[in-house]
């Protein structure tokens, strides 16, 4: 999908997010960090009761077993930034496309709100602005000037904080150096207290993300669908070897 547009396939990074389920405590810090960084609106109680949410990252909680031998597991799910993304070919206006760094980008001002991409996404991580988001004054001051505020009728989703990727890249270029591993941190990764989220370049075999991706604990969500996600989960309950 659109891979031929890469200027040089060798040099381009492949951004990936590693989610260590053994460390995740379900604390929700990533969720608020994402709201703050990406100008994600809130749905309000009425819409929330209706089953809607606007979070770009949500933490699934799964129950296993019955009382008293019951366990709960947490699993943060955000856009999986698939290599073979089901959301991309269905967009009639190319609002969702594959960028040279392997990200599924969403071009808000192309989006006409068909929601086809959301229907096609097997991970259900795309959210749709059914209403004009409201930021009662002076809450508008909290908005991040690096990120668009989406209006009614627009589909949105996790971008791996592309503005933070660009910021680090621009700074590195200005200083005449390469971006170091670990320097780019999406807002969720930056705040995660137990260090369950690790961001890095899969095309760099030495990056921490690459190393963890090779762990025996690694798996991808709904791997059998052939979407080849760039989010790599590490199974909980065992040590890394």
């Amino acid at each position, binding site marked *: 999908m659109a891979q031929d547009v890469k200027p040089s396939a060798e040099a381009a990074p492949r951004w990936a997010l590693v989610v260590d389920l*053994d460390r995740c405590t379900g*604390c929700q810090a990533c969720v608020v960090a994402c709201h*703050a960084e990406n100008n994600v609106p809130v749905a309000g*109680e009425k819409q929330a009761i209706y089953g809607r949410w606007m979070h770009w990252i949500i933490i699934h909680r799964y129950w296993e077993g019955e009382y008293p031998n019951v366990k709960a597991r*947490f699993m943060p799910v955000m856009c999986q930034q698939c290599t073979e993304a089901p959301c991309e070919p269905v967009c009639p206006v190319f609002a969702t496309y594959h960028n040279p760094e392997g990200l599924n980008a969403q071009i808000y001002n192309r989006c006409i709100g068909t929601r086809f991409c959301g229907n096609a996404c097997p991970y259900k991580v795309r959210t749709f602005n059914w209403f004009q988001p409201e930021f*009662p004054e002076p*809450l508008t001051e*909290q908005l991040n000037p690096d990120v668009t505020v989406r209006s009614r009728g627009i589909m949105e989703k996790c971008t791996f904080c592309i503005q933070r990727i660009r910021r680090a890249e621009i700074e590195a270029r200005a200083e005449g150096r390469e971006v170091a591993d670990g320097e780019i941190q999406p807002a969720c990764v930056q705040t995660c207290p137990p*260090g369950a989220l690790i961001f890095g370049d899969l095309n760099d075999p030495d990056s921490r993300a690459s190393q963890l991706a090779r762990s025996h604990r690694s798996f991808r969500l709904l791997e059998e669908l052939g979407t080849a996600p760039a989010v790599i989960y590490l199974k909980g309950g065992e040590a*890394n070897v």
Partner: protein
Amino acid sequence: MTKRLSRRDFLKIAAGATAATGSAPAVRRIVLEPFARSGPLEDVLPGQAVWYASTCRQCAAGCGIVVRVINGRAKKIEGNPLHPLNRGKLCARGQAGLQVLYNPDRLKNAVRQTGGRGSRQFEPLAWDDALETLAQKVSSLSNPDRLAFFGGLMPDHLYRLTARLLEALGARPPVIFDLHSALEGRAAAAQLSQSFFGVPQLPVYDLARSEVILSFGANFLETWMSPVAQSYAYGALRQGQFGGRGFLVQFEPRLSATAASADEWIPIRPGAEGFVALGIGRVIVEERLGHVGSHRPHAVLYQNVDVREMAAASEVPVETLRRLARIFADADQAVAIPGGYLAGQRNGRASMLAVQALNLLVAQIGRVGGVFLSHPGLTAALRQTPPMDSFDRVLDLIARMKAGEIDLLLIHGANPVFELPAAAGFAEAIARVPFVVSFSPFVDETAVRSDLILPDHTYLESWGYQVPAPGTDRPVVSSQQPVVRPLYDTRATADVLLALAARLGEKAAVALRWPDEVAMLQEIASDLHGSSLGAYDAETLAGFWMLWRRYGGWWSEKEIPREPEATEIVEQPLPVVGPEFEGEPGTYPFYFYPYPSVALADGRGSNLPWLQELPDPMTTARWGTWVELNPETARSLGVGDNDVVRVVSPYGELEAPVVVYPGIRPDVVAIPVGQGHRDYGRFAQAASGSNPLALVAPVTDPETGALAWGATRVRLEATGRKQPLARLESLDGAGRETLG
């Protein structure tokens, strides 16, 4: 990784601003000049971000933060990567701090309530008039004892000022109490340390390097003590550098998010935590487990303990006790944590003592992976941390208010009308006080019952400092500076008190001699100047003051461990005390368990839309209040998810929809605290929900005087009504509505 980021961030972390000294004292001296900084001017361009270091005030932990500021507006809060406590990390509540600053329901100036208290009719008040009224009220008191100060989460310098002012006036010291601290058992934990180690300092549990952790009701990954530092340590516990993976056991009547992260959850009978700890201790002594001889001197502790009785009383089988005793004693590094739920019982002190004694028994006090005290080092002089008061001091104040012995009540950083058990009668007592002044930036339930509201700045506009408690592996002070100019005509309460003292003259003016709070902070910070231990030092005081703001505090470069020494109290047999509950078991068959919400804490987060919308980790519920019932309990009552039940205690009742919760004992009913605000702004008031403090008996543990918030029994009545709860998870498996 931290190192590399640190350097970059250090360059970006800007100090406060140049001083624009005012002529009059108590004029707010320093406001930010976003483009005139200590660095070269060409560094800062319009539209470019600068980072200011400060301290998070969303809970008492005192994490370091850096705030991204663009054109004088705060845009994002992140953890301070240099800070040794939270190491760049921050929790959900810390991340939401921008909405405290930019909250649409903030008070924009000082106000007087014109239609009488509770009328919610406010009239703007000039600060000079406000100060004059306040000074006149104080000086017209017939006796200084008729003045009372009720504080909650206060920065250390403000507590210091308040305590000095009250002392100079001859009034009693401030009463410091808030619900969050009560739920985490802060006062009781300090008392436990006092009797165990001889200092009232909260201990640090070395979770990162422990192999086995027995956590008794400590939800240390959610709200207890220093959740960010503890979560950071938890990450290391799980995926150790050398491939180790620690073992965590959680004893709790309800499966909290911390218990969900544990390797084993033991649904213990409420109030029986001490019995389990005593049982495990007795097994270790009897079977001579663990390192040879380590327990022998402590055998006397367990001479009154019978393992079978303990097993029966706690409903934890003897085999489980034996198994856990072996795991615990055989580990090289192991630690037992007495948590907040223990402190919330009427046998709280006995239970906490029994748990802490386990650390002594296996010689983990002062050992890697065990229990430490934070080393004060040079920060000792700064440690005038507000001592959390136990609940009996609050009850005493309420009694004095009711008896008409208080003429002037000042309230800062607490919302007692909302936070105290309704049955304690604060709302009735405050009506008997002739004049009440609130310093709240928001019109909360207590401020609405005040004559004057003199709003403090919110924390991102404020000066201050805090010695984090519990601390970390080295001496630390977190410093706070305004990251933006104050948005409105609010005034720092410290400056108000200083101005008040100047007006009152005499002793008060001598005791509070600083012209403004910044001068006071500069004087305090200068204590640390010239130390070779610090992560930085400067040749001049001015340079030190700049770095103090740039770094967001002062800390030692290296780890300085401090080994506590157990006092002789632990050479006597441990008391075996059973819990007591309010309410007849026949009429009120369930134990009531109000628990702190991960998002809203004790309710102070409920005016922030991000936190209202934040799914509870366990139930995925947002916005409302719910009642958690075991599936079996729900079945026997004939209710399911979203069916409204009435929960009745001997003290009050509330109605809320049910969440059928597989991780709770059948005899326990759990409700999160935080909702049910009648005031406190549009987001808090819009949320459906009720305040579970209406049900809680205002009783204490007689040993510590701590609020026994878990010592109430309730009964349940089905109402036949349904009320949908805003849950993220789909209950019918049909998926979600977000796209459809």
